[in-house]
Structure formats: structure tokens, C-alpha cells
């Protein structure tokens, strides 16, 4: 029984790491957030039931993004079946089915997550400045809204880049996730 507890901890780790991203990703297909959550949870249930192994994080992501996409398309198909005669719906569905859309949405979610992770690792002031700068505020606008001098803003930005560099340089995070093998 201890072994199966271990399993659930690793499963939880995987869930915690990827659940929000996968929900956001699913929402780009389904528009509805609750339906997206349901779809993602169903995929996680499947992973648990089938005791699928993931040796590292990218393998897990690759599998899960694909599974969530397929789940969402299934949901859409059942919903669209009745209105499929409208040309615009068919075109929209073809676009959602395409690899291009799939990759674009993965990049959306993954890049946003990376950016957030990098900014969240910064000290509070630095993070505030970078977040505003991401929202396209100019240095002057940032300085005004935080009551700082423009030179302080520039200096803080420099510090921020320096701190974030190692985070963004390393290409892949390696995470060992083995789920079924301990369940003897």
C-alpha cells in the first residue's frame, strides 16, 4: 500500500505542474473554462488508470498536450455534429484540427508559463517592472506608475535580465516521473 501512495504523490506532482497550463490550452479549443477543466481531468484519469509512465517532463508534456487536444476535438465533434452544414463551422473546425493550431497554442501556453516563471523568480520590485514592461509600458510610464526615476527603472531592468539569464539559458528541465513500476 505504501507503494501505491508513492504513486499518487508522483501523479500529483505531474498534475500540479501541468494542470493550469493544460486547462488554458484546452480553453483555446473549447472556449468554455469548465468544459476545459473537465476535459483535462478526464485525460489525467486516463493516465492514472492506464498507469502510463513518463520518464521525463517533456515526454509527459508531449503526451498530455496531444491527449487533451484529442479529447477537446471529441467534445467539439459531438457538439458540432448537428450544425456541421454551415460552412464557417466546418472551416473553424478544420482550423482547430490542424497541427498549426496545435503547435501555436502549445507555444502560447508554454512561452507564457516560462515568462511568468522567470518574472516570479525576481525580487518584488524587479518583477513589477518587468511585468509592466511586458504589458508594453515604456520606461517612462513604468517610472510614473511606480513613482520611480527612469534611471532606477533602467537599472532594475538590467538586474532583472541578469537574474533571469540562467533560468532561460538552460534548455530543458529534467524531471523523473515513473508511475507504474513501483506498484507491484
Amino acid at each position, binding site marked *: 500500500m505504501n507503494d501505491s501512495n508513492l504513486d499518487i504523490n508522483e501523479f500529483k506532482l505531474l498534475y500540479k505542474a501541468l494542470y*493550469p497550463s493544460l486547462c488554458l490550452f484546452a480553453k483555446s479549443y473549447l472556449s468554455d473554462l469548465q468544459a476545459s477543466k473537465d476535459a483535462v481531468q478526464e485525460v489525467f484519469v486516463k493516465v*492514472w*488508470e492506464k*498507469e502510463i509512465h513518463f*520518464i521525463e517532463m*517533456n515526454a509527459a*508534456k508531449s*503526451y498530455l498536450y496531444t491527449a487533451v487536444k484529442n479529447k477537446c476535438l471529441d467534445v467539439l465533434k459531438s457538439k458540432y455534429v448537428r450544425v456541421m452544414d454551415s460552412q464557417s463551422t466546418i472551416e473553424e473546425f478544420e482550423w482547430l484540427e490542424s497541427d*498549426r493550431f496545435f503547435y501555436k497554442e502549445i507555444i502560447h501556453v508554454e512561452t507564457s508559463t*516560462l515568462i511568468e516563471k522567470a518574472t516570479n523568480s525576481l525580487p518584488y520590485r524587479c518583477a513589477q517592472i518587468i511585468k509592466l514592461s511586458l504589458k508594453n509600458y515604456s520606461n517612462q510610464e513604468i517610472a510614473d506608475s511606480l513613482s520611480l526615476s527612469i534611471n532606477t527603472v533602467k537599472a532594475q531592468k538590467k538586474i532583472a535580465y541578469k537574474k533571469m539569464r540562467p533560468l532561460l539559458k538552460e534548455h530543458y528541465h529534467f524531471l523523473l516521473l515513473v508511475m507504474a513500476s513501483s506498484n507491484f
Partner: protein
Amino acid sequence: MIVLTVELSSMLDFKEIIAYCKSLSNFILKGKENTANPHTDLITKEDQDKLFRDFNDRNYWAEREKILGDIDVVEDWKALKSKIYFSKSKKQNFLKYAAAAILLIGFGLGVFYNLPDTFKTTEDPSALGNNIVSGSDKAILGLENGEEIELSKETVYKGKNSSFVSNHLLYTKDKNTGELVYNYLTIPRGGKFFVELSDGTQVWLNSESKLKYPVQFIAGQPRTVELVYGEAYFNVSHSTQHDGDSFIVKQKEQELEVLGTEFNISAYKNDKALYTTLVEGSVAIHNKHSSKVLKPGEQAVNMGSDNDLVITKVDVNYAIAWKDGIFLFRDEPLQAMMHQLSRWYDAEVDFENDVKKNYLFSGTLKREDDIQTLLQNLEKTGEVTFEIKDKKIMIK
């Protein structure tokens, strides 16, 4: 049974995408122009520009923040947990070790760090002369009267005690009272085969294997079969269904006693050792010197009759992947890996550079894939190149 594998090519695509995300986030954080080179043709310029505009749009981030705020990770975990506990009873029905690991081909991480630079398109092997085809279900059935029958996909066979239908050879479920009569199954290179014996025991046989078994077992005696050589996966019909008659797998170097269980035996002629891997249940193994009981997840290594049996813990998925139609490798030396491939594709292997024999590879390959696809995927690691001439694979 469900086996999930991610094709290597799509995994490589995914790696490219993730690498692109890294460089893109770098550019965005620095507030630079969109010059991140995606090293990939998976995304169009149009999509790239659209993405870049989003990342520099305050509405995009505000919207994202709002959605993330509406996702309660802790609360939804509770919901998910109740769903998976509810399905726990169902879980028992799944073949426990059917799920395959999803892995990457390459030298650990290094290959993928460097992927964009080392990603060269090599010559298409299909352009070269190549007569190598992937293996399939086939065997030679040796009958009690010495007759030999070739069984393959196209064959339909109906014998006295057995019939061959849709790639399965099934024996009539009858108990014998008289003498034991033996049949043989010989699986050639490039073959695999499935047989269900008269007691209901299922046996999957790998390429270059030979099994000797009685057409019918005698009640009150141990059910004894012999794996003459090669590799087999047994799902043994439980002894409680046979009035306690145990099941024994004999080999030259050892004897294995079973009570109802699933296990894999690999006993290739050229391999230095004989490997028995237990998936479920319990087995006892005896050789000249020692007797050992195996627990699930353990592997007994028999280095020959002069040595004691050595028991190690293993990931059974690796030992039984062949049965589910995949090659599964973890830190496997290239030579050993090519040895397995050559058995299935019935090809010769030749190393031009001996150093490469010891290169370690991990990964999942589908046995149904043709050899070109498979070798091309291996080439994507940038560490080896292959050349196929006739039935020979040259490794450079």
C-alpha cells in the same frame, strides 16, 4: 490491452517547439524584436508574428491572469482524486505492465540540447538498395509425426488437436490419459508467434525461438514445456484450474516452476546469460547450484550452470515490450540494440567504428515500422549514420 507510445518523430517535433518557446520567452523578456529563430518549419511566419503580438499585448496578460485565477488547482485536485479512487476497482482489470514508458532516443539530454545544430537531414535510405522488411507472425509447426507446417498470416490450418486462426494457434482443451505427444514451434528470424496450449496457458514467442510442448497434458503430472532457445512470454493458466498441477518450463541450464503467473524468459543462444523476468505471481527457479524464488518485478540472471542465480530488481516493461509490438530501450549499448533489431528485421549488422558499439541509447520504437523510418529516427540523434545495402546495415 493498451500500449501508448509517442512516435519518435512527433517527440522530436515537440522538442523543437519547446526549444522555440525558450528562445521566444528570452526575446520577449528582453523586449527585443521578434528574431527568435524557430529552427523548425512547424510554425509559419504568420503564426509567429501573431504570437509575438499577443505576448506584447496587455490585454492578453490580463486575460490570462483572470483565467488562471479561475483555476483552483487544490480544489480540482480533490475532484480528480475522487474520480481516480472511484476507478480504482476498475484498475485491477488492466494489464498492469502494459503501459509503456514514453522515452526519447538519444544520449540522455545532450542530444536534445544540441538538436537544432546537429539536426542534419541525412540521405534517404530508401533511395539505397534495401531488402529489409519488418518481422511478422510466422512459425514452423513441427507435428508429432515429424511433419512440418509453415504458419504465417496467409495460412489457414486445422489439425487434429489444434487450429490456426487469425494469427493464433489454439490447442483443444482436453486432458490426456495416455502418453505425452510433443509438438514444436520454431520461430525464424523476423518472426513472432502466439500459441495457446491445451491447458489455456498463453505463450508469446519472439524471433529465433523454439518451444517444445505436449499436445495435451496428463492430469496429475506437472505440465512441462521446454523453451529450447530464444525468448518467450508466458501467461500461465493457474494451477488451481488444473487440480494443482504445477507448470514447469525446462531449459538446458535451469528449470522453472510456476503456480500461475506471467513471466518472460530470454534464453538466446548467443547471449551470455539467461534472463527470467517475473511480471505477476511467483516462480521458483532451480539450476545445478541454487534455487531461488522470484517476486514480481525481479529478474533472475543465469550465467551458466557454474554460477549461482543472481536476482535483480528490474522495470519489467523493458523485458516484455517486444510482446506488445515495441522495442523499448534504456541506456542500451548500440551493439545490443542492433542485435535485437537484426533479429526482428532479419538483417546483418556491421560496425565501421567499434567505438560506436558502446554508445548508449534510450527510446521507444515500433516494431511495425519499416527499418528506414526507424534508422532515420536514430540518425536524428546526430550520433550515428546508417547505410543499408541489400540485407546489411552498416553503422558509421
